[in-house]
């Protein structure tokens, strides 16, 4: 307790010594310093400049980052003549005329000349289901042959006689005979 009081007394003496060795400023001096302080912002510059001075490092880094981003963007975009010349996609190199939509020929609009129509009619191709069935049941019926046109030499009759089976010898002989006559 005594030591604590002694320490406090020492502190007071030290403070007194400090106070005694530094004169207090007069009111005139204080007013003068206060007036001078009011002119400092004007003399030093705007607060923005003060802010920049205090933070010039991050501001500089931010500026560089922004500039680098801008250059990179220009490079990629090919602006200001920077960067590689833009190569258009392959699809864009096709002439525009070739890209014009072509109308496919209408499937049902085949125009036939009268001669073509007549030729097709002569063929007499059956397309109906019923006729097709007839064709499937009798391969020869679809041919629609005349009696005269179908077997001018009666070969079929020889080959396929209505009542009995023709023998190969009979067929061979008949064929030779026909050849000799023809």
């Amino acid at each position, binding site marked *: 307790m005594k030591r604590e009081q002694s320490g406090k*007394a*020492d*502190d*007071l*003496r*030290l*403070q*007194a*010594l*400090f*106070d*005694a*060795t*530094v*004169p*207090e*400023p007069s009111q005139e*001096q*204080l007013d*003068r*310093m*206060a*007036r*001078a*302080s*009011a*002119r*400092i*912002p*004007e*003399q*030093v*510059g*705007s*607060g*923005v400049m*003060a*802010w*920049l*001075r*205090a*933070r010039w490092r991050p501001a500089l880094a931010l500026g560089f980052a922004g500039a680098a981003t801008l250059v990179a963007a220009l490079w990629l975009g090919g602006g200001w003549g920077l960067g590689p010349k833009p190569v258009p996609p392959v699809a864009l190199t096709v002439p525009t005329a070739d890209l014009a939509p072509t109308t496919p020929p209408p499937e049902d609009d085949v125009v036939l000349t009268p001669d073509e129509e007549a030729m097709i009619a002569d063929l007499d191709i059956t397309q109906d289901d019923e006729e097709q069935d007839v064709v499937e049941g009798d391969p020869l019926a679809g041919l629609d042959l005349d009696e005269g046109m179908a077997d001018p030499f009666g070969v079929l009759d020889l080959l396929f006689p209505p009542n009995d089976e023709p023998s190969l010898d009979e067929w061979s002989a008949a064929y030779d005979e026909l050849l000799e006559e023809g």
Partner: protein
Amino acid sequence: MASSGMEQADESFAAEQALIEAALVGDGSAFRRLVEPHLPMLHRIATRVSHNPHLAEDAVQEALTLTFRRLGSYRHDVPFKAFLAAVAARQAHTLARAERRRSKREQVAEAPATPDNPEAEMRGATAARRVRQALWAMPKKRREAALLRLDGGLSYREIGDALDSSEGSARVLVHTALNQLRELLADLLNDEPGQEDSTGASS
């Protein structure tokens, strides 16, 4: 009662912040109102370091200019007084070096002064010089703590803020600084027992 005190502190803090914002955009009168209450403290520190009342005014002006330049980096959780005192204490180091160079030049060139009360003047000048020498015999941070405590009148918390350390560290730093000063100035302290009643700095 306590809450009323806290409200007043909040209002004072808010007013200080408004003045700082205004000063940052170039309002000279706002900057004046901001620093005017602290001018005696700045003048004491400047006079201690320069040991010349005329130079002290210039030193205060320089400290205020430096403060304005650094106002953009001011941390709003630190009392402005501590911020200002920190600038002054750090500037003191530069000032002291300049003062030492000036003293060396003037010891050769300057004619001796003729004081009105030679004996008292001599004693005062000697004591002031001894105090200054004792301060500069200490490590930089300890010296700053002593200046802020004894000439700036700052609390431990404000000293901690000014020196960018904790209140506890500031307390230890000040304690060590005062002990060293007491040792270095023991003869002067024992010679002046009559000044015990002077008010000390608030804690």
